[in-house]
């Protein structure tokens, strides 16, 4: 029997995946559950186990191809296992047919057994389509041409991930909206300026190298555009005196090392954020604009933005509100390693309610991080550096001293959070960074 293994919907909202590499080759015997391929979806790299034992008859895509959910990836001849010899003896006729048609590229043995009229099912035909090509009926392609929409950028919501007319219209609308918003920004150039830039770009194109965005990079591009197009971003900047946190970390580092955990500043900052979120649940909410509803999340799940060679990924620490600093440290360490090895599962990247983006190790004072919809805020944490600050002393007079400070940038969704709320939240985060012992006071 021929088993067709289709790219499963490995997670909510996934419409396609990129074959990172094949772990098997055509003609190879595989066991059930043996890993067939590594597939990178918009969010993570997943291993796909074989649904059956048998011989790999055909691989329908090549490494690097982007394949829609529901498309056949592998055809496995499950008869080509231990029972093969017996089957062949019982059906010598069938074997002869197979022999005759061996040279035919597309003829599967299922077709040869039943060469009845109308033998090719719709599904089989669909699966023969070239992988990586966006699925859309011709009338949708015409619409896309008219609206100048690149179908490769549109996520399909139709059957088998097909792009519908509505998908194209929605995409075009979002694009217009984005363009309109950009037009409002003061930094935007005038039309003539834009045309000039375009002309220069066209002239320079010959000297440029084209790189197709794929996987995480492409997902990031889409998500960030969606973020900017749909969320009313506003960012507040501040500084915290990091001395308290540095001292506490130093005092704890040996114990953590004994536990096998590398203690960085991030677990402390995460803990500080968790405490602030407990006091300000609005920052741990999600917003549904269509229904004008704020949904307060019961759990605090902290997304940690991790820089990897493939791009920025955001694994999530679930139930961070119930975890100790050591536990947070251990999880951050594990998730970061997995992220860099592209081993994160989708589950590990879903369900975040608030995100921390830590770029302190690289440098930079401030930034305006973009919020991941449907979350409503994100905290950027920057490098710790020495700075002269005024130390107020009513008895001996104010003094300039050298302190180690850390920059923090909080982007919040101004549709539902106002500046004052944001400042209060930030002050609490700063308070816990500056005086981490307060965390003990409220610890449960």
């Amino acid at each position, binding site marked *: 029997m021929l088993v067709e293994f289709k790219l499963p919907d490995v997670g909510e909202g996934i419409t396609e995946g990129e074959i990172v590499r094949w772990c098997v080759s055509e003609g190879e015997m595989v066991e059930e559950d043996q890993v067939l391929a590594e597939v990178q979806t918009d969010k993570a790299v997943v291993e796909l186990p074989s649904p059956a034992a048998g011989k790999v008859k055909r691989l329908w895509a090549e490494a690097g191809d982007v394949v829609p959910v529901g498309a056949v990836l592998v055809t496995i001849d499950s008869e080509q296992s231990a029972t093969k010899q017996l089957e062949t003896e019982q059906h010598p006729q069938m074997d002869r047919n197979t022999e005759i048609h061996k040279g035919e590229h597309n003829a599967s043995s299922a077709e040869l057994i039943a060469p009845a*009229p*109308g033998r090719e099912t719709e599904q089989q035909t669909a699966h023969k389509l070239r992988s990586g090509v966006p699925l859309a*009926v011709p009338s949708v392609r*015409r619409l896309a041409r008219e609206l100048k929409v690149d179908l490769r950028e549109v996520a399909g919501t139709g059957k088998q991930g097909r792009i519908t007319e509505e998908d194209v219209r929605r995409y075009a609308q979002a694009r217009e909206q984005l363009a309109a918003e950009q037009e409002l920004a003061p930094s935007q150039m005038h039309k003539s300026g834009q045309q000039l830039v375009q002309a220069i770009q066209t002239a320079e194109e010959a000297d440029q190298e084209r790189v197709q965005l794929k996987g995480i990079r492409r997902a990031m591009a889409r998500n960030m555009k969606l973020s900017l197009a749909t969320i009313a971003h506003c960012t507040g900047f501040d500084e915290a005196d990091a001395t308290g946190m540095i001292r506490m970390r130093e005092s704890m580092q040996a114990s953590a090392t004994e536990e096998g955990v590398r203690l960085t500043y991030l677990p402390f900052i995460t803990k500080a954020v968790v405490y602030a979120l407990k006091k300000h649940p609005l920052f741990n909410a999600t917003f549904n604009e269509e229904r004008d509803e704020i949904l307060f999340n019961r759990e605090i799940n902290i997304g940690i933005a991790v820089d990897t060679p493939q791009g920025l990924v955001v694994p999530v620490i679930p139930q961070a509100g119930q975890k100790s600093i050591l536990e947070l440290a251990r999880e951050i360490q594990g998730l970061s390693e997995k992220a860099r090895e592209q081993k994160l599962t989708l589950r590990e990247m879903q369900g975040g309610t608030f995100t921390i983006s830590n770029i302190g190790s690289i440098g930079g004072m401030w930034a305006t991080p973009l919020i991941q919809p449907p979350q409503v805020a994100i905290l950027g944490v920057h490098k710790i550096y020495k700075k002269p600050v005024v130390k107020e002393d009513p008895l001996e007079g104010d003094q300039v001293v050298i302190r180690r400070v850390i920059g923090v940038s909080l982007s919040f969704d101004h549709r539902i959070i106002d500046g004052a709320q944001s400042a209060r939240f930030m002050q609490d985060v700063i308070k816990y960074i500056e005086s981490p012992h307060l965390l003990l006071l409220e610890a449960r």
Partner: protein
Amino acid sequence: MAQLTMIQAINQALAQALDQDPAVIVFGEDVGKNGGVFRATDQLQARFGEQRVVDTPLSESAIIGSAIGLAVNGMKPVAEIQFMGFLYPAMDQLASQASRLRFRSAGRYALPLVVRAPFGGGVRTPELHADSLEALFTHTPGLKVVIPSSAYDAKGLLLQAIDDPDPVLFAEPMKLYRAIKEEVPEAPYRIPLGQARVVREGRDATVLTWGAPVWLVHKLAGQLQQERGISLEVIDLRSLIPLDEETIMHSVSKTGRALVVHEAVKTGGFGAELASRIMEKVFLYLHAPVMRVTGYDTPYPVPQVEDEWLPHEERILQAVHELLDY
């Protein structure tokens, strides 16, 4: 205006052609004294004499061969082949001789001959009597292929076919010979070849068909409109060669969906040609692939199962739904 069956309309057309033009001659097996196997030539011999309505020996190849000789020498022969399946023995005459004469003579000779042949299923005939072989002839350059589906069209198209300077296969759906009665004007009239008839206007999908299925599709379209609000545009092609591409493409680009229904077997049938042309001309208007409901890829079956074999209501309905839900 008289209510006529299709066979009566054909009989009337032949009589008027014989009456109007002394070059017209009707011949075939049993067409004279007997009046034809389906009575299409009834009373014609009595009226026009044995020189113009001629009984031939049982030899299809000889019938078409004679027709070619007569036509090339200035006559307008109308030959009857009792069933389309019996055209196989005459295929050499049709494909190797008749269809090529204009091309071979660089346009010097025309060949005004008409081959009438009943065809199609649903009447419980024995083997070779019901085969729909129209694709064999559409695949033969130089032949025209005309298929009426109503009494009115049968008369007008036949008179036009007799006037046509090229060989025309005039395929008559035998199921419709006596199944319908329509008002048919007494006076001779002609319907140009290559003009499809929009049987019913609609907006959701276009059904392209010819011959006996026209009536079935028309009936179903009415039901679908009434019961489910589905609006089908039904087009009777009437002539496959020449083909009215304009009407077809206009309709398909309007509805975005096309279904072809024909009795002939699927593989290599004229439905495949239509699907392909639609792709070439109006591809970007399609919401779904062109679909086909046809006979199966087997020889025409025994009477016990022919209703299942032919495109029937259920299969057409299913295809319409697949097309709309694609």
